[in-house]
């Protein structure tokens, strides 16, 4: 039997798809901002912090990097209510994404920090700059410059990983595709459309992140 593709059946559900894209982008944006902040804080603690702080961050980073994202998500959504913490699917998704991105970006940023020559820090110290100043003005900017492409990739990986958030009823793009195919049984078409939309989102996000990097990290110059 030849395959008869019927994209119209899927595309006429465009409000669902659009809503899904908005949710996927929204979750990714919040996760990127908060996750990177968390990652930078964790990287700072792991390089400059006290012994206890370093141990805690190491435990956090290793436990997140060595467990699947969906397990972390289920732990937050199905596990935490046992402790009295009830989160909506959307909150559980965004928290899982922030925690996940935080752990991975901590290691990426730490790599950038460690590549900063010791001499620069010593020069800043001799100018009587405070530790906070040295980190935010001398160490961090070139560190982020070095690892920005890796961070951008990690953000996109987290965005694509958010596809599993549909499992707990977060209405993101994969959820929309799944809902459509369960209504009209056009599974092949629904997932082709979802694939194309994810590709579009990834390319857009990468482009935006490149621009953001150029603007804030590379002083308007090409990186």
């Amino acid at each position: 039997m030849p395959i008869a593709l019927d994209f119209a059946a899927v595309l006429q559900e465009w409000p669902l798809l659009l809503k899904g894209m908005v949710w996927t982008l929204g979750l990714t944006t919040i996760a990127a901002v908060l996750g990177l902040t968390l990652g930078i804080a964790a990287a700072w603690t792991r390089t400059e912090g006290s012994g206890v702080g370093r141990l805690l961050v190491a435990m956090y980073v290793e436990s997140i990097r060595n467990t699947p994202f969906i397990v972390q998500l289920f732990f937050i959504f199905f596990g935490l209510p046992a402790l009295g913490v009830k989160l909506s699917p959307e909150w559980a998704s965004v928290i899982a994404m922030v925690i996940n991105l935080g752990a991975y970006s901590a290691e990426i940023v730490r790599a950038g920090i460690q590549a900063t020559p010791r001499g620069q820090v010593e020069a800043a110290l001799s100018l009587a700059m405070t530790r906070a100043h040295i980190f935010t003005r001398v160490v961090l900017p070139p560190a982020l410059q070095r690892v920005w492409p890796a961070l951008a990739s990690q953000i996109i990986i987290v965005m694509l990983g958010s596809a599993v958030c549909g499992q707990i009823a977060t209405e993101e793009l994969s959820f929309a595709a799944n809902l459509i195919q369960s209504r009209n049984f056009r599974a092949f078409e629904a997932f082709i459309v979802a694939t194309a939309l994810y590709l579009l989102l990834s390319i857009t996000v990468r482009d935006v992140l490149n621009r953001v990097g150029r603007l804030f990290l590379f002083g308007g110059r090409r990186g």
Partner: protein
Amino acid sequence: MKISKRLMLSASLALGLSVVTGLSHAQTALDSIQKSKLIKIAIPTDFPPYGFVGIDLQPQGLDIDMANYIAHKLNVKVELLPVTSANRIAYLQTKKADLVISTLGKNPEREKVIDFTSAYSPFFQAVFAPKTLNIKSFNDLAGKSVGVTRGAMEDQELTKVAPSGLDIKRFEDNNATVSAFVAGQTQLIATGASVAANMMQRNPQLGAEYKLLLKDSPNFIGIAKGEDALRLKVNTIIAEAKKSGDIEKMAQKWLGRAAGNLPE
């Protein structure tokens, strides 16, 4: 000369393709089952007592018994494929399964894409909630959150009767839907009677009870469109099983109630 060569090549390619597709078309599902002595049947593993994984990690339940029964009557081996409510129709469409015996209800949307045999077991879907929640009609659901399994019959029925302001949360499979309700993530749950009974039995602290009927829908066996030879064969097996009392025995064994009057 060059062009004609290319033409001939594409023509012969097209011919070859049509021969291949023509061949696969001529062979019905029943032929290939009898030839390979193997039938592939999609079954649920998240739907006790129809289909679930026992402590020995083997699937069991009414649907699994029915799958084995049909394979036995066809005198072939059976390969059981675990599916979810959301993907079972796709298994038929992509020919990954010959039959879907997975608490499948019949409705016009589904009849457009697959065929059905006679009914083989009883079933109904309803909304369940704790006794403390006062629900008398579907209008009382406004402002509440209801968990449901995406793509299941109850999803479609609930969507039809939902008042505005009802927050429907759609989960991937029955386990997730039940877990969300048990964890208190949704106030109500719309699901099959058997799933609810199992959930209430394991979680008496919830104080959940039956609230509203969504649909009385016996289970049918799903089959790819146009596979009439296999469908008629299975219908004969079901009709004989009804006569011999085997259908009744399965209903009593797994559901603890009579099979009732099942539609053809």
